[in-house]
């Protein structure tokens, strides 16, 4: 089999399957072998579901042979372990759910299964998606394929790492404050967080319900477009799912960048941004100018308060969502509970890791009597101001650009001692979650042999335009085609 098989994107693999260059079973075997081989070094997976993958691939081959294939039939995918998968452990990166075998599929999983994709396994992640480095996982940290001394970003670090090392052409992911875009940037891959409400969250384990959104990580904007079309759409089982038509994202890739009005977010080019990273971003903006886009400076005056706003809203919602883990109906239960309160407290104290407990306690504090107005209400008001900044900007421009992350990947352990330092990694990504707008990250260069990302942010339901802009950029650049040296 061609050594470059894993280097092909989804579109290329689909073409190969259609022409019978290789079968879905052969493709799955090849990638399962790479996933197993990489596991000791990268720790990118929590479960590798070999048997189920080969069975699904065989079914896909039957569909292909019968001439019934759709655009995704037989294509491999990895699901972040936050998505419930029927009959397969769904741990959410936590000891709490280490023994949890989901009795049902998340809507995203069901839709991609119905489209004929082949799940290779479940990706490692920060525990309950709370982290920016993948170091809070109960299953240990994921390593960055570009340099295994570095973090891959988080919380979707496993999803980003498997795509970066070409162990899977694509992976699902989720983004509450940057958890798709930041690991995509730090791992040199393309990641899209859709509009709040665009993709169903049914069966996606909840962290912060006013912010969480499912999305995708792949090697290119084209591949993200292909998958988003299959994932997006109304779901009566998710009360926040928006009933709006799903455009043809692949067809929309042809939209030209010429005439696109791009706003450069002034506040994102601050003293926290790495100077070399900044140079790469300006070079990326020059690519858009060359393509005929117009560039203007735009200000989001309140966006600097995104991190403090988020660290009230997200922990508050997390403290309430994670109350369901009580050691009674599923999940970890402590040994020999003395009484019901002891059962709750020790099951939760043992089942949750340090960062999850920190966020539950922060949330409990800001929602407690006497503090609600000062913290939660205030944060909700500032959220309104930040959201209004985005709305105002989108009256003038089609797309906003800026960095995805202040620096390239940092060493494992470098930021674990001080949570606030870790939280500041998401300073440029959180705004889009607070406003509920879509955003993506594309690779735009390297700093010290580590990838850096360019972030594009658009108004609500502008995924087609964002993907087209990213695609136009990727037609002019080859950053997204680079593969880490150790994973040829």
């Amino acid at each position: 089999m061609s050594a470059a098989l894993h280097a092909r994107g989804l579109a290329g693999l689909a073409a190969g399957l259609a022409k019978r260059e290789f079968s879905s079973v052969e493709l799955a075997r090849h990638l399962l072998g790479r996933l197993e081989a990489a596991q000791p070094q990268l720790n990118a997976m929590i479960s590798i579901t070999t048997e189920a993958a080969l069975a699904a691939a065989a079914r896909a081959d039957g569909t292909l042979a019968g001439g019934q294939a759709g655009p995704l039939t037989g294509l491999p995918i990895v699901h972040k372990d936050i998505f419930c998968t029927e009959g397969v452990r769904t741990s959410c990166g936590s000891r709490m759910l280490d023994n949890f075998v989901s009795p049902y599929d998340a809507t995203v999983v069901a839709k991609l299964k119905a489209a004929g994709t082949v799940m290779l396994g479940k990706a490692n992640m920060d525990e309950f998606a709370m982290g920016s480095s993948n170091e809070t996982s109960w299953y240990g940290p994921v390593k960055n394929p570009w340099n295994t001394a570095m973090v891959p970003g988080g919380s979707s670090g496993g999803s980003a790492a498997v795509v970066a090392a070409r162990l899977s052409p694509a992976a699902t992911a989720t983004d509450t404050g940057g958890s798709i875009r930041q690991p995509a940037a730090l791992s040199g891959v393309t990641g899209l967080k859709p509009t709040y409400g665009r993709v169903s969250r049914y069966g996606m384990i909840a962290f912060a319900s006013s912010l969480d959104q499912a999305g995708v990580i792949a090697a290119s904007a084209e591949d993200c477009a292909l998958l988003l079309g299959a994932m997006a759409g109304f779901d009566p089982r998710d009360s926040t799912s928006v009933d709006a038509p799903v455009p043809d994202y692949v067809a929309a890739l042809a939209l030209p960048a010429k005439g696109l009005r791009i706003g450069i977010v002034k506040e994102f080019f601050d003293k926290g941004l790495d100077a070399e990273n900044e140079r790469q971003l300006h070079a990326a903006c020059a690519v858009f100018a060359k393509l005929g886009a117009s560039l203007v400076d735009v200000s989001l005056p309140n966006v600097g308060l995104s991190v403090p706003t988020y660290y009230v809203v997200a922990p508050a919602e997390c403290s309430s969502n994670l109350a369901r883990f009580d050691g009674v109906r599923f999940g970890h239960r402590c040994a020999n509970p003395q009484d019901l309160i002891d059962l709750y407290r020790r099951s939760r104290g043992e089942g949750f890791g340090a960062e999850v407990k920190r966020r539950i306690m922060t949330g409990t504090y800001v929602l407690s009597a006497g503090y609600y107005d000062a913290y939660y209400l205030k944060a909700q008001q500032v959220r309104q101001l930040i959201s209004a900044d985005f709305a105002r900007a989108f009256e003038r421009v089609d797309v906003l650009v800026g960095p995805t992350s202040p620096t390239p990947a940092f060493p494992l352990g470098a930021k674990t001692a001080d949570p606030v330092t870790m939280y500041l990694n998401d300073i440029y990504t959180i705004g889009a979650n607070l406003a509920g707008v879509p955003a993506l990250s594309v690779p735009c260069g390297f700093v010290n042999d580590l990838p850096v990302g360019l972030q594009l942010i658009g108004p609500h339901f502008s995924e087609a335009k964002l993907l087209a802009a990213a695609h136009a950029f990727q037609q002019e650049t080859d950053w997204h085609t680079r593969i880490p040296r150790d994973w040829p």
Partner: protein
Amino acid sequence: MSVNRSDIENIARLARLSLREEEVAGYVETLGNILAMVGQLDRAETRGIEPMAHPLAGLAQRLRADEVTETDRHALYQQNAPRVESGLYIVPKVIE
């Protein structure tokens, strides 16, 4: 805003979390740092600003017809339960 040991112990009690003795000091420091960072919100002028609960402004909460849509799958669901007897979830005795 700073928090002390008894604040942490009280929050942990409200959140139904047991903490090991050595964890408490760490949370005194890190929660204090987080609340200090969150204190930046005081800079924002928010008088008269409507609080924003979620990004779907203007969309009404959908309601569905009051019909039975789920079948009884309790045996399947209880396969994940730590302790079950006769189809019931078992917890320590609550009433003496």
